[in-house]
């Protein structure tokens, strides 16, 4: 659990972070979002003390972070950044094993851990001997995440880790990170300026503006009730309906298959409702047949139900 109480950070006369309070529960995926320069990275770096806070208190599981020795604290917190920060003169395997080595694990234990992590992140074992410049952007970022996870930290801090990747790789990695978090139960604080990324990943969405937190809550809460015009426009303005639909799976809204559903255009059960709406517009239909991975029917989706549901939520 991470808690920030009235935390402020100044750089000279400039206040980069202005009295923010935040509580991230154990196992929660918290995303900080906001325009560039609003203090997201500064907030993140104050948590692992790469930047010291000027005022206020930051607690880790109830203990002020200033009670910890800096290096010890950081070894307990995973950290991944956009440029990956992989050491270019070390092999992938050595890069991943960095924190375990700092913690003086035995060689064989490090070796095992590196292999397990590469497997977890979908990196072929022979990559262990490659150098970072031999990797694609997506592979390098996987290595970066593996390195952050190496000593099995409870907390993971990520600063725009997928910001430099192409959209397709980015979406793949977002999906994998979500799954990873569901499986490992890490507490994650994730910084991004990409609202779609923020909405898909976040349990808790924190919108920052000029060093302050303007609103925080579950993504749907923010979409439905933005605190002001800034949050509303940041969340997509009139596109918010579709953004919200992107957070709902088709299977959450489908009804049992009726006989007349035969021959309707199909949609996968794991697709999102905004994809379903797109299909309806495309096929000029109000009804879709919901299928699973093998294209066997599992339900049906109708526009009327979607409208009805939306009105009563």
């Amino acid at each position, binding site marked *: 659990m991470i808690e920030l109480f009235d935390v402020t950070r100044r750089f000279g006369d400039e206040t980069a972070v202005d009295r923010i309070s935040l509580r991230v529960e154990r196992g929660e995926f918290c995303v900080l979002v906001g325009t560039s320069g609003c203090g997201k990275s500064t907030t993140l770096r104050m948590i*692992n003390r*790469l930047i010291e806070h000027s005022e206020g208190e930051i607690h880790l599981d109830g203990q002020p972070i200033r009670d910890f020795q800096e*290096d*010890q*604290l*950081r*070894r307990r917190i995973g*950290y991944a*950044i*956009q*440029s*990956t*920060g*992989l*050491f*270019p*003169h070390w092999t992938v395997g050595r890069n991943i094993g*960095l*924190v375990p080595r*700092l913690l003086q694990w035995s060689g064989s234990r490090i070796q095992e851990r590196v292999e397990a992590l590469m497997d977890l992140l979908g990196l072929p074992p022979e990559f262990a001997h490659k*150098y970072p*410049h031999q990797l694609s952007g997506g592979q390098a970022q996987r290595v*970066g995440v593996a*390195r952050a996870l190496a000593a099995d930290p409870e907390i993971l*801090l990520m600063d725009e880790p997928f910001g430099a990747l192409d959209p397709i790789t980015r979406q793949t990695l977002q999906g994998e990170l979500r799954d990873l978090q569901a499986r490992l139960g890490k507490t994650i604080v994730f910084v991004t300026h990409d609202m779609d990324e923020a909405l898909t990943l976040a349990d808790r969405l924190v919108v920052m503006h000029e060093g302050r937190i303007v609103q925080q809550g579950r993504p749907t809460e923010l979409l439905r009730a933005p605190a002001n015009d800034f949050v509303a426009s940041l969340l997509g303005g009139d596109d918010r309906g579709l953004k919200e639909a992107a957070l709902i799976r088709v299977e959450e809204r489908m009804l049992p298959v009726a006989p007349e559903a035969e021959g309707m255009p199909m949609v996968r059960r794991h697709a999102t409702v905004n994809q379903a709406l797109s299909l309806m517009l495309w096929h000029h239909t109000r009804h879709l047949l919901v299928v699973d991975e093998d294209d066997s029917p599992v339900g049906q989706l109708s526009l009327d139900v979607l409208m009805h549901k939306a009105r009563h939520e």
Partner: protein
Amino acid sequence: MSRDARPNRVLVSLMSLGLLTWLGLDALSVAPNRLVQGTPLSPVEALGWMVTLLGAMFMACVVWLAWRPSSARLWTALGLVTGLLVAMPLWLSGAVVAVLDPDMPQARVGIGPGLWVLLFLWLLVLVELRIRLRLRRVWVWSLLLFVIAIWGMALSQWLTPLALVQEYQARSEQFLEAVLYHLALVGAAVGASLLIGLGMALAMRRFDGLRRLGFGVLNSLQTIPSLALFGLLLAPLAWLGNQVQWLGALGVSGIGWAPAWLALVAYSLLPMVRNTYVALEGVDPGVIESARGMGMSPVQVFFQVRLPLALPVMLEGIRITTVQAIGLTAVAALIGAGGLGTFIFQGLGQAAMDLVLLGALPIIAMALVADALLGALAERMRRREAA
């Protein structure tokens, strides 16, 4: 690459020039004793038409090969040039026997301008061939070592009447001493400036004011002519040597190794500090940030990340400094610092050009070798982490 129809202009012009040199310039000079100006001899005068034409044919052959440079033809050219480089000392050995009068034991043979120019041109041809054929450096160096071995054998066995060899034999112990002393002085100066330079670069990174001041001072040091700097150091060092017993005992005085070493360090500092500073600053901030973020201590970040990543650029500074110091040490002989410069200035004083060469040639060789070795090392490091 393999079937490049256009002539390789570099090779064609270098070898044509070589051909003209061979046929036009004097290859040798013969003098009855050390002090008399020698009589110049052309290759034809030295060993006759047949051999001269044979050499000319080899060179013409390279021109012809370079006219339509396929890879096979360039390899053949490489073989021919290597052959020429090996043939030169053998030709020289033959020529020495042919032109010397056995009744005049004092007579000596000088290497004429023609042979020097040819040697230079052929080495350039070798460089061009290395680039065209994409040869590994190691390869070319082994080739050169082979050529040098043949030269060494010829020089020690058959070329004793060469003036250069006689100058060497007259002072072979002195020569070895001078080479070692030269190297020691360069090593001590580069080593000291590396340590001081690293310290200064680190301090400058920490304190902004110091950076401007430091670079200002070093820049102005660099503009003082070397002899003037030696002169400036003379008085204070002489005083120090007199005042402080143990310094005096070490040989610190206004002349000798002390002012030479100090001046060398002073000149070495600017390139050393500049490169070290730029190298340390140039390390990707993202890498440093993540190193700190992973929980490495400042000492670990410096020695495991920043320093190794800065090393290739730092090596560039060491390379520049070393080559510069090898040359400057020659000048330092003027203030009694010893080293190979001694021969150069003695030779100049006695108008004995071959003695000048005895000092100058090893200096050039040292500079080339240091340059190549350190350059290759830096390149090797850089290649491993190339982005």
